[in-house]
């Protein structure tokens, strides 16, 4: 059996500072060939540090990293040829054109691809002659992906590829990433957008405080909540420090937690829970001020694991 695309064991990275910053604290990962693997977590969770160690840009404090069964120490040259990288927030030279930038990076690889072919892959043909300084945020990000692809990599790292982009640009990038996956490239994607991870990734590792706290396909992780649905409601005229036990006891409810003024229930069958919830509220003399249901998401997984939201963790 060929080795995994990525194998990480007990990875640790501590930055020298006062006090020392433990960015990664014992992280294990295994990424298979051909899968799109997501590292999902809030800002500061250690995603970028982990990815930059995998990319051979940073060195780990301890632990082992193997890419296609090779290590950065012994096989740097071969590994550099076989990975493509899009770093978080790289700004390419303003005064070079898109085509010139891709050609420059292509020249570093033994089997660099023709610039025009890569441009077409990210849909930037029209901007070939444009200066980098004249690109929009989304176009610049697509250029970063093109530069990552120019060496024809077996393994692609995309660090926060859509952060700060407008919805349309995000969707364009999602389409590009999907088509790359369909062509069998192995992709490691970091993001703090749960919807992005849900849409694009075969498997996701949820990272918090430098450790993997959950691992699986997005569907598996959501299923681990016990229910696929979330019922959220708020009561008028009820003290905030309320008891959640009666709600947990309602039929088909798998979990309950406060969410600001409201209460969130994880449920398997909303059509069973909601009538029972209404009866309970009426019997207790309270009044509903809000009621909604939705599909459970990776966000709910993160909240149930950490008690915090991704966006404000």
């Amino acid at each position, binding site marked *: 059996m060929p080795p995994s695309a990525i194998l990480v064991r007990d990875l640790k990275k501590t930055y020298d500072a006062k006090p020392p910053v433990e960015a990664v604290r014992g992280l294990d990962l295994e990424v298979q060939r051909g899968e799109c693997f997501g590292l999902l977590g809030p800002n500061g969770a250690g995603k970028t540090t982990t990815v930059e160690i995998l*990319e*051979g*840009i*940073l060195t780990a404090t301890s632990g082992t990293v193997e890419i296609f069964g090779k290590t950065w120490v012994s096989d740097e*040259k071969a590994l*550099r*040829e076989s*990975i493509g*990288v899009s*770093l978080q*927030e*790289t*700004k*390419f*030279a*303003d*005064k*070079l054109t898109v085509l*010139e930038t891709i*050609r*420059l*990076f*292509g*020249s*570093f*690889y*033994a089997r*660099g691809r023709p610039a025009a072919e890569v441009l077409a892959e990210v849909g930037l043909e029209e901007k070939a002659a444009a*200066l980098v300084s004249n690109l929009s945020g989304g176009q610049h990000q697509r250029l970063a992906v093109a*530069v990552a692809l120019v*060496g024809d990599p077996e393994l692609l790292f995309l660090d926060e590829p859509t952060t700060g982009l407008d919805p349309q640009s995000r969707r364009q990038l999602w389409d590009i990433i999907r088509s790359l996956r369909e062509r069998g490239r192995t992709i490691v994607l970091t993001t703090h957008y749960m919807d992005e991870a849900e849409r694009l990734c075969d498997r996701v590792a949820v990272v918090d405080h430098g450790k993997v706290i959950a691992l699986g396909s997005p569907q598996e992780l959501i299923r681990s909540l016990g229910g696929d649905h979330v019922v959220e409601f708020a009561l008028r005229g009820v003290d905030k420090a309320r008891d959640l036990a009666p709600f947990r006891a309602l039929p088909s409810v798998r979990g309950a937690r406060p969410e600001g003024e409201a209460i969130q229930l994880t449920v398997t069958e909303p059509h069973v829970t909601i009538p029972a919830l209404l009866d309970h509220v009426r019997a207790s003399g309270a009044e509903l001020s809000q009621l909604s249901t939705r599909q459970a998401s990776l966000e709910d997984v993160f909240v149930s694991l950490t008690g915090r939201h991704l966006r404000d963790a």
Partner: protein
Amino acid sequence: MRDRNPFWQLLLARMREFYRQPEVVFWVFGFPILLAVGLGIAFREKAQEVIAVGIVRGAGSAAAAAALSAKDSFTTKLIEAASAEDALRLGKVSIVVESGATLTLRFDPTRPESVLARAKVDDALQRAAGRADPLKVEEQLVTRPGARYIDFLIPGLLGMNIMSGGLWGIGFVIVEMRSRKLLKRLVATPMKRTHFMAASMASRMVLVIGELALLLFFGWLVFGMIVQGSWLLVTLLSLLGAFTFAGIGLLVASRAKKIETVSGLMNLVMLPMFVTSGVFFSSERFPEVVQPIVRALPLTALNDALRAVILEGADLTSQLTRIAILGAWGVVSFVLALKLFRWT
């Protein structure tokens, strides 16, 4: 095939980034020319220096004015006794003459033109009063290219340009790339680091040849300046200077993460040399005690060697010490820079 050559692509990228920024092109090529024009005009040779003389109104002032006005080399101005001090202090006149029983000459001994005025005014007034010179004097006037301020200045500007070009063109550019995370992105590719360094260096060499040609051509065209020594030697000295200051630029940029940091460091390196290394005036003006330090600076070595070859026609063997000083700075900086350099 050039599309696939990383050194060529890196060099091309540097050159494109250079010429697509008109403001950078101006600082490298336009600014030294403007300086040469400005200073060339300000310090041009006047046929004869005209001395402004203030004559205090009073007995004998008319006679003194008449005696001085008879000569071309003076302009006279009658002033009140009260304002004489101010006129002298503000430089409106170089000397104040007060005639009376004794002739009073007020001048500032620290100002060269004032000292000259004292001698000339004294001479003119004494002769007008009937002094006879015991010795006969024959004057021979000598002004020829090679001895003028502009001749002194242009090699200095060339040296200055090679220094600031190296520091800005390497130091600033690299720190900017680091702050944009572009250096980090480059090391994530199989790019050879030596290719990157060599391309940065080569871009400076190309520009230095341009700077050299432009300044010397301009000096010849506008001021009739001629290169006495070997062109080849001038070119080699300039290239060595480009190498040395690129090395110093690289050293300054080896760790700095912010543009502000590297700008400060570059000024720290350049300012002392602007002042002491004989760009605008001879470094010989500094006291003897500090001369060993001044002569050990790379820009002093470069300027002195350039002047020796351009103005005096010196040959290679006479400049070996200066070349050794300059080269040593380059090699040491380069080795240190490569040891300290951080890509991320």
